[in-house]
């Protein structure tokens, strides 16, 4: 008897470990250490009650809202109750398809072996298919590697690097002396009989700014976006945090891709993202998405908010104005770069642009390298 329970316990432990591996493969961040904790948790609440086990494992294996939302599906796919299946088999006798989704098949699915999969997986695949077609549009992106562009590119990298160095240096000079550090002062005064002859100082650490960049990649903006992307990449070294997004009709975050040390790697990785390259533009809607999904995290008083767009908006200008207003009130500075501003005859009279103007702190051109370098003065604190 005892051996039997022991064996059952071992079996359960094995299943839970397998489950941990399963959720890891599905993108949850839980590591090996969490697997151990998961086992401890399962022991603490017991495995008889599936619901309780789900709650316990969820608290251990998840570490963010996203993972939390994903977890339940993963759990039920994996721990599909044998009993449940039995009862379901009774209900729908002859419907053999359900049996294919026993845990074993779920495991083999994620392991990459092709097996019987349910409707959900099929749905997922359809989405991937649509994304692939869109991703094919990255072609114009890679075409940039033309010969005459190469020289300009090198120059850009060099100048932007210089600029980011200059920015860093400027921060240092402006540090004031700060307040007396009593702790150190007393410590040092003891050897002089307690008279604080030399004062120690300490200073508030200068808060570095964060930069959030939104790049318009609609058809009209293609050529410029690419250089601004380099600009954003170069700035990463200077700011505490740079978050970069692409938008046209929808919004896509590309921050992780830009983290790559090598610019070319980064550009390559970017080719994998698709946000409807070269489609129309819905600036207002994209900004609303941004506020909804990233606003809490990124819109702070330390944020410089930089938009690159020509302001040709196919959405409603009222929406754009409302979103910009909301953003402006939460960040330190809104900078709008418009490449068309470089043309002498350009007037910002497009519906979108004129709706946006009241909410912009800095409205500047960004049509060539020179204008980008000129931005330096807007990016420092003064």
């Amino acid at each position, binding site marked *: 008897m005892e051996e039997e329970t022991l064996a059952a316990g071992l079996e359960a432990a094995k299943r839970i470990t397998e489950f941990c591996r399963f959720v890891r493969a599905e993108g949850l961040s839980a590591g090996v250490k969490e697997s151990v904790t998961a086992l401890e948790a399962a022991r603490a609440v017991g495995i008889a009650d599936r619901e309780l086990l789900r709650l316990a494992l969820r608290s*251990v294996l998840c570490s963010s809202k996203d993972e939390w939302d994903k977890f339940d599906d993963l759990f039920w796919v994996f721990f599909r109750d044998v009993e449940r299946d039995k009862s379901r088999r009774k209900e729908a006798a002859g419907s053999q398809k359900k049996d294919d989704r026993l845990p074993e098949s779920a495991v083999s699915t994620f392991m990459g072996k092709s097996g019987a999969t349910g409707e959900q997986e099929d749905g997922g695949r359809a989405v991937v298919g649509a994304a692939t077609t869109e991703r094919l549009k990255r072609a114009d992106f890679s075409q940039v590697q033309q010969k005459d562009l190469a020289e300009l590119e090198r120059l850009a990298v060099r100048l932007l690097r210089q600029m980011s160095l200059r920015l860093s240096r400027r921060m240092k000079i402006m540090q004031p002396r700060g307040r007396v550090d009593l702790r150190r002062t007393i410590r040092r005064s003891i050897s002089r009989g307690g008279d604080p002859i030399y004062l120690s100082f300490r200073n508030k650490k200068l808060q570095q700014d964060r930069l959030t960049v939104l790049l318009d990649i609609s058809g009209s903006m293609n050529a410029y976006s690419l250089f601004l992307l380099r600009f954003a990449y170069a700035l990463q070294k200077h700011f505490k945090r740079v978050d970069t997004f692409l938008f046209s009709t929808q919004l896509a975050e590309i921050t992780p891709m830009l983290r790559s040390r090598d610019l070319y790697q980064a550009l390559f990785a970017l080719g994998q993202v698709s946000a409807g390259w070269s489609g129309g533009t819905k600036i207002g809607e994209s900004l609303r998405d941004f506020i909804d999904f990233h606003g809490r995290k990124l819109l702070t008083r330390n944020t410089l908010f930089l938009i690159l767009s020509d302001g040709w908006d196919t959405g409603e200008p009222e929406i754009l104005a409302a979103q910009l207003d909301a953003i402006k009130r939460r960040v330190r500075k809104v900078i709008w770069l418009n490449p068309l501003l470089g043309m002498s005859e350009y007037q910002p009279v497009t519906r979108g642009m004129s709706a946006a103007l009241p909410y912009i702190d800095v409205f500047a051109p960004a049509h060539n390298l020179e204008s980008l370098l000129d931005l330096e003065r807007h990016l420092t604190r003064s």
Partner: protein
Amino acid sequence: MASPTLPQGKQIKEPGDIVRGFEQHGYITDAALGTVVFLGTKLGKPVLLEGHAGLGKTQVAKVLAEFLGAPLIRLQCYEGLDINSAVYEWNYQKQLLAIKIEERTNQTVEEKEKHIFSREFLLERPLLQAIQTENVSPVLLVDEVDRADEAFEAFLLELLSDFQISIPELGTVKAKHIPHVILTSNRSRELSDALKRRCLYHWIDYPDLEKELKIVSARLPGIEQELNRQLVSFVQSVRHLHLNKSPGVAETLDWAQALMALGKHKLDQDAVEATLGCLSKSVEDAAKIKGAGIEKMVASVGQ
């Protein structure tokens, strides 16, 4: 890792104990939160509570402390929070005085130094207090940890794994009893993976109608059932409006109190308009609620 010490005679055997215990102390919760808190006490792991403001994250720690009969130690995080205000600080004024007083004694510099850097001159801040409590594990609430900066988070991580603090002048202080740690975050920034992985995670969501009704009647025992039902349904529908700041349970309670103070027995349009400030904390949100048609919404919860 060792688990926290429970007070004598207190036993927690299963998540249900937590749920029932919390309910006795006026905090309505569900099995999910019960399980997390249960595991936290059982495995000695910190519990990270995330969710929108006003949903009772902080309250969890308070109620846990009440339920356990353990002291609650609270550390409110803010930008620029440093070791001096979170862990310990020397009492400088007292140190300066002591140096002056001892000026004429024959003590050597070393003796003097040893004296003014002794426990007598140490000001204990929350984190040091938390690992120094006698007899029983305290509840340590690290509130709004997302507001502290990354450097502090790294320090916290170290503390939560070893439960010891080293003070250069004094040596290492080791925890007598591992505290029950509750961290809360409003997700104003993403916490580091390392910290998140050290914790048990729980996302507190807006309560459903039934649960919110229970919460309101538990917290405001004097409320009339009809008013309770109407105002909670109203709040629930307001949450669907995609406001900049959806009203949390705290707002519901505020609002209920306001309506009770005005002597209302049921919801009507005038009452809602007069007290809209309890629900929406910005002009835009108020406009959105008005735009959705207060009269219509009142009517739909009225039957």
